[in-house]
């Protein structure tokens, strides 16, 4: 009898707690505004790959902070192969600058900046004249001021690679 009453009380408490929680909106979590449109971005970069053979995409997730950030994608390259890269930044709430280097960030000595762009989508190619075995793509992510409602701004950048080695 005692056990039965404990169980029924516990059950009632659980229901009350679930009701209370759901009515009040659950655990407080800061709001997130994720502008990432990965599928659409992938479709867009694939279209740009012609006449190279599309290889794959790499998605870089970005969480905006109240300070500038740099995200880097390092890509290995093989000799006698031509490459095409397409960078799509449409899944971001604000524009970013993209810079391409021959050396990794933090270890640069007389680096060569291969290109830079602030477009929503752009392409660049590397041919056999490029002698390094890696290329480094930097996303310069600007700071976003904290908002009163503490909404976290997120997004993503989609990078596609294609190659010709025939």
């Amino acid at each position, binding site marked *: 009898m005692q056990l039965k*009453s404990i169980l029924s*009380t516990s059950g*009632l*408490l659980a229901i*009350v*707690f679930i009701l*209370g*929680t759901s*009515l*009040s*909106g*659950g*655990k*407080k979590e*800061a709001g997130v505004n994720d502008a990432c449109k*990965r599928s659409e971005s*992938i479709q867009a970069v694939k279209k740009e790959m012609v006449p190279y*053979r*599309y*290889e*794959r*995409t*790499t*998605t*870089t*997730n*970005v*969480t905006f*902070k109240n300070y500038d*950030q*740099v*995200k*880097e*994608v*390092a*890509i*290995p*390259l*093989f*000799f006698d*192969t031509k490459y095409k890269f397409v960078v799509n930044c449409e899944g971001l709430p604000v524009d970013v600058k993209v810079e391409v280097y021959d050396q*990794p*960030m933090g270890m640069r000595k007389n680096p060569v900046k291969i290109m830079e762009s602030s477009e929503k989508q752009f392409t660049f190619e590397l041919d056999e004249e490029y*002698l*390094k*075995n*890696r290329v480094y793509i930097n996303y310069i992510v600007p700071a976003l001021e*904290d908002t009163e409602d*503490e909404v*976290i701004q997120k997004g993503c950048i989609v*990078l596609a*690679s294609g*190659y010709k*080695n*025939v």
Partner: protein
Amino acid sequence: MRISALIFAVTFLFTLASCSSGDNSNNTVADAIEDEISGDDIEMEFEEDDEPDQVFMLPSPLQIGSIFKNAGLNYQEGLVVNPNAANNLTTSVDKSLALGILFADMTYCILNDQTQTGKEFLKSIKDVSQEVGMGSVFDGTNLVERFEANLGNQDSVLNLLIDIQDRIDLHIHENGQDEIEVIIFAGGWVEGMHLGANSTRDNSNSIPARIAEQMTVLQNVVGLLSQIEQTSPKLDELRSQMKSLLSLYEISEKQDNKGGDGYEITQAHIDQIAKSVTNMRNLITNS
């Protein structure tokens, strides 16, 4: 007594729930809890971010296979593993390593018009994917049927391979399984090197140069494997063997006279690499 306790509990729980919603119009308990959740804590939550500042774009098995193929790598009977090689493996990590081998061998078969064998690998890949929690990659896709329907058309089959790769990438991205991606890639890299290093006796091809340039990828793989948290005795041993191989490669590193990155690699190096990757491959596939 029981009723008063229940009323207290209900009141307390509603208070907690209201507090967590940010409703400050309630009572002092809510205010006290609100005080506990200091601005710093909220800031920490905001700062939490497991996105790394640098990522490596790993080459696809198809690109590595195509490079070796164009360098003169031809199909050799007996070089690929048994398509059922992963059947006796038990852990998810070990199966993921084997999955990489299966991908590499399927690619090798398709690039060399051995599509019937390639199909056996695809079936096995489908099964192992299910076992490592990536079964949804194949859900509702009829990939095996589409593969069978295009057996005589290499280009269509290669497009299917790319489709599978995209689906895996999507699955990994959506489920935060970056570690599995690295583990699968490591297995695939070992197999690609096994195929290349064990078929270099013909001096007319440029496969040794292709093997040499895989150093770049090995550096990335070793770096990525050192960052992942998942583990198994096999994975630990593989890490160790890959680091040893990296040392061997570093001996051959050399800048060419145009200032480009390169390696000077001899047949003795190739033999050592072949022996090393064969050991790694046996480690992965032996149960």
